[in-house]
């Protein structure tokens, strides 16, 4: 019979959230450097910003 998993404690959950945050911040940099889809999305957004800026002048 499977042993029921002990529920995660509050402090363990907070530590888990901290780790997730640190990992997500590393992933954001990595994705930007290595993922062509992400690079293309940022390039589109950057282009839109420039167009919006030019239109408003």
């Amino acid at each position, binding site marked *: 019979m499977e042993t029921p998993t002990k529920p*995660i404690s509050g402090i363990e959950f907070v530590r888990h959230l901290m780790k997730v945050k640190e990992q997500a911040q590393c*992933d*954001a940099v990595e994705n*930007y450097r290595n993922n062509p889809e992400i690079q293309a*999305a940022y390039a589109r957004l950057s282009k839109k910003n420039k167009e919006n800026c030019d239109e408003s002048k």
Partner: protein
Amino acid sequence: MTNQSEPYEFEFVAGEQNVYLFTTGIDIKYEVKFVPSSDYFNAYMEVDAEVFEMVISIADNLAGGRLPSDERVAPTIFVIFEDFFLAQRHVIVFICDSTDGRGKARHRKFGHWFYNENVKTDVMTKFDRIVVDGSNRIYLSLIMSRLHPNAGRIVEIFMRMGEEEK
């Protein structure tokens, strides 16, 4: 002229981690991610909530160093938040980074922009906690809708979180 508080345009990237991207006028590239984090709340079986951790990251800052003030960043994050958030279901947890000793200032700033932006809708509500873990002070916020069917119970669990062992 561009409105100083007008949100930047953003894109949603499909995937289980709910990633949104935007870039500023000086090309600082932001990523806003909503990571599924229901584990802890799921232990309380009566609570029907989908909990996500919101993480705001800088993917690229060409200029380097401290980020210059940009009044369009906060409205953009709030618009992204509204795009993702489902009032009857979602609960968002947010941690302010305190590893460089500026957690308290970030927490205050986050609260400030939340109340400034939320005044337009007034549906969402925010609860703040400081959890002490050894020598670390961790600044936490929970954001949810006043209309969430389990609002009271979720807030109760959040406010007790990390106090069980004491």
